[in-house]
């Protein structure tokens, strides 16, 4: 090949390497941001006004959509499972909904909801602040942007998501019960639905779900903050950061979900 080096298109290996390096770099930045934010937790926890504002935005403002999602997921779980079990026994519907909601659907669904709804707005907000010099302005005022912007969001998200998970579990299970009560294709009483569920669902299932919620809450705040703070290049850069923040939050939630599940089964 006679083309100059500068005009050569990078090969597949080079491009793959660049992508891997970029992923590792973002991951490193995210971990570093989390460490710095954790170091500022005592300030974040005492900064009641900002913390309450973030809790309201992340927690209470999410309740209506969380209820809607959970209700229908619980209902769909019952309808789908009942159809599969129509020739066997529908008495396991309660345990299916209970275990699915507490261990998986509740935490993952709420994690996705938070990453999509709140994470995107965090990335866009911080991205806009980076592009329009507001982050620089904070620095010139000796205000640490991590303490001021990141720490309250991480604390609020880590506190709010386990509560949202419990809330989603409750609503999802109630949604399933509603279908059990009114669907003529289901031959099971509501009391039996709950009785069998309480036999199977243990407190430890709720606990694992809440631990997942706290971890996913951290992810849903740290990943958008990482992408938001490093935004460059105007409106296009803000849009790119927002998209990347949501996508990578989803990816990390699923990766960490697998690790937590695997770890929970490995424990005695």
């Amino acid at each position, binding site marked *: 090949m006679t083309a100059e080096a500068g005009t050569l298109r990078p090969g597949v290996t080079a491009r793959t390497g660049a992508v891997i390096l970029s992923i590792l770099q973002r991951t490193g930045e995210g971990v570093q941001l989390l460490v710095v934010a954790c170091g500022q937790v005592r300030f974040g926890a005492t900064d009641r006004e900002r913390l309450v504002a973030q809790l309201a935005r992340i927690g209470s403002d999410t309740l209506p959509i969380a209820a809607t999602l959970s209700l229908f997921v619980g209902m769909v779980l019952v309808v789908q499972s009942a159809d599969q079990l129509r020739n066997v026994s529908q008495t396991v519907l309660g345990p299916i909904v209970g275990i699915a909601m507490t261990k998986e659907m509740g935490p993952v669904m709420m994690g996705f909801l938070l990453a999509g709804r709140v994470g995107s707005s965090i990335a866009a*907000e911080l991205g*806009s*602040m980076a592009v*329009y*010099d*507001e982050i*620089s*302005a*904070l*620095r*010139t*005022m*000796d*205000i640490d942007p991590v303490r*001021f912007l990141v720490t309250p969001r991480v604390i609020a998200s880590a506190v709010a998501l386990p509560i949202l998970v419990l809330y989603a579990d409750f609503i999802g299970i109630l949604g399933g019960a509603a279908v059990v009560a009114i669907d003529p294709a289901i031959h099971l009483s509501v009391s039996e639905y709950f009785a069998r569920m309480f036999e199977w669902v243990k407190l430890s299932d709720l606990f694992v779900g809440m631990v997942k919620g706290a971890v996913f809450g951290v992810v849903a705040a740290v990943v958008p903050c990482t992408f938001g703070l490093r935004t460059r290049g105007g409106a296009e850069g803000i849009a790119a950061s927002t998209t990347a923040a949501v996508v990578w939050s989803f990816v990390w939630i699923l990766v960490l979900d697998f690790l937590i599940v695997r770890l929970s089964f490995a424990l005695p």
Partner: protein
Amino acid sequence: MSDRGVAVVLDGVRRCYGDHEVLAGVDLAVRPGELVAIVGQSGQGKSVLLRQIVGLERPDAGRIVVGGLPLERYLALAADDKPFRIAMVFQGAALLASLTVADNVALRLREHGQMAPAEIADRVRRALDQVELSGAEQKLPGDLSGGMRKRAAIARALAIDPELILYDEPTADLDPLLTEQIGELIARIRSGRGSTQVIVTHNLALARSIADRVAVLDGGRIVECLPAAELAASHHPLTREFLRAAGLGGSP
């Protein structure tokens, strides 16, 4: 004029982005209480220079001394231990969009120091009075005009009672009337507080009317720095070109 200002010394400041050398050895000495305007064409590194002075970026080479302290030593000090304060007014004002004007102005005072809320409120009121923004305390930045945003940003700078104020294009995107108002405001700060002020601007007429000295940045260096009153007598080709373009004389 009071003697509140601090001296700023730039000695061979260099800054590269990749292969592109934006600042190629800037030398400049600003005296305490002096108002220096840095003019130059777009892309010559005027804003980059301000970001070096305020510590948002570090030079690749060279030395910056503010108030007798090397900048890196000043930046390493805790906010409450700093012997003087530096404020910067950004080109786009950079007010925090989620905070009201009053909260923006009070931000640093609330975050640092032991000032009582009543004292902070008083400082905010005085700063807003100075920039003629009384009554706009509870407005959000999005509700302000461009000129009001700039004035709010100047109030935010004034609230901390700084010894050095840096302005990045304070009159960009403003009509001639607002430009004049901002110019008068900066001149008032100079005569009232005596803070050292460095202004980066394209507006040569503004620079000439309010600055003590005008420095011309070209090719990453200060190619000329002369008293504003002597600007018209400059023989430097770029300065002459600027004067001509601004309708202030200069050779064709």
